[in-house]
């Protein structure tokens, strides 16, 4: 047993036999009369769609796990389950420790509020206290490095500035588990480098990181392990280089290599 595993009594992230089902409502163009008669009979046409089927996954403390898969394979659903946005239809999801979801950067931002106000709001949404956010405000602003824009409403931000601020907030709060979902595509090269430097620091500090990317070079360079999702199930799990190769064999006919 390695030291890292010794430190934790239970894994930071553990999914057992998780199935996530969605109702997909079908709104076909109805005539007004059909619409009324349907509404009266309380009839909605929908079908069930299983975004994840019987997924089990355990992420040990300190691991950086890459999650790969084509569009619609269930990556985002998996992350949202771990982040607590969804409650699984079946199975259990257990998360130990504080979690910073970079699922969609700046999800908690309100475009009418200033950058500074949004730092507080999104910190509170992640479950941190006002005092804590006030304490970290300066270093968040420093890392984001967006100058005077910090006191402008964020609707005036460029998408790059938006990402910078959001990444700064999410990583400055010192979470135990960091979820990074395809977010680093927006910033410029210098900022991306800064982000990866920070992610590496997280790794060194023994934190658990879930990383979604279509960029295989980034993935194989940083991750300890990778899982490949396809049609809602994990079809491969192991060494990032191997899994990335497997993924590429899936996508060759339809996808040009990214970046």
């Amino acid at each position, binding site marked *: 047993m390695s030291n890292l595993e010794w430190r934790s009594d239970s894994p930071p992230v553990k999914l057992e036999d998780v199935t996530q089902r969605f*109702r997909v409502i079908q709104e076909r163009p109805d005539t007004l009369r059909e619409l009324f008669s349907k509404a009266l009979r309380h009839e909605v046409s929908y079908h069930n769609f299983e975004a994840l089927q019987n997924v089990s996954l355990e992420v040990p403390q300190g691991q950086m796990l890459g999650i790969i898969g084509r569009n619609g394979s269930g990556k985002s659903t998996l992350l949202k389950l771990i982040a607590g*946005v969804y*409650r699984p239809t079946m199975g259990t999801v257990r998360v130990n420790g504080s979690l910073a979801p970079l699922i*969609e950067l700046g999800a*908690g931002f*309100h475009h*009418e509020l200033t950058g500074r106000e949004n730092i507080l709001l999104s910190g509170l949404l992640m479950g941190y206290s006002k005092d804590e956010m006030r304490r970290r405000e300066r270093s968040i602003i420093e890392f984001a490095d967006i100058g005077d824009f910090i006191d402008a409403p964020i609707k005036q931000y460029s998408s790059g500035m938006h990402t910078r601020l959001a990444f700064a907030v999410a990583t400055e709060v010192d979470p135990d588990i960091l979820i990074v979902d395809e977010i680093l595509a927006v910033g410029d090269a210098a900022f991306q480098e800064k982000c990866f430097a920070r992610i590496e620091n997280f790794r060194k500090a023994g934190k658990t990181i879930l990383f979604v990317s279509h960029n295989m070079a980034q993935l194989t360079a940083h991750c300890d392990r990778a899982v490949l999702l396809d049609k809602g199930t994990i079809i491969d799990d192991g060494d990032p280089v191997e899994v990335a190769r497997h993924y590429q064999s899936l996508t060759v006919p339809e996808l040009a290599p990214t970046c």
Partner: protein
Amino acid sequence: MLVRDIFRYRELIWVLALKELKIRYKRSVLGFLWALLNPALMMLVLTAVFSTILRFGIPHYAIFLLSVLLPWTFFSQSVSYAAESIVGNGELIKKVSVPKLVFPVAAVVSNLINLLLSLIPMALLVLAMRHPFYLTWLYLPVPMLALIIFTAGMTFFFAAANVYYRDVAHILQVVLSAWFYFTPIVYSLDFIPPHQQWLFKLNPIIYVINGFRLAIYYGMLPKWPSIAASFFCAFVTLIIGYVIFSYYQDDFVFYV
């Protein structure tokens, strides 16, 4: 459960409530002053109308009216805001794991700030019209508490209902305006023939807002049964609203 959650997320609720107010008054020259000016100007209009054009034979009618119109406005605004609060924050709910109750509660809090601010012009009006400034104003926190509890229950119910049936927000406006006229706000319960009064007494909110008029306009305190009735209605409403809300809240994310 509810109290614990509200306490736990008090900072978030407060920031969301302030955000709502800030957005309501944003880019207006007078900004937050509108929270004071709005009721003040409304009072001026009502006073002018009811002291010159429409005379009901109720002395200081503006005070008679406003003493319950202000709490009613708090109630109806909170419910209207809250009905949209879950759906309106749908994008957020779909991305961040956040306790859903903060949204309707923040709607109540932001409107409560408005209600408290509007008591300032209310007090000025009382002085200006030389209506006695009764000591019973000190009693106001009691009906205020019942009103907040009652309103919170309603907001939970409508916030949840509107997630599943978007028709609710539209129907709500009609319901609120019908409810307004069914409630003794512009008139007094004494205007109703005695044999019909029982019908009006089925309306739970009359017990809740009655205390405001008694304390501000008449300088009296409600009788014990009336106070008990107000808290009974308030707590029943809160329990029903909150139970429905918490039963469905984990599913909201799939419907917003």
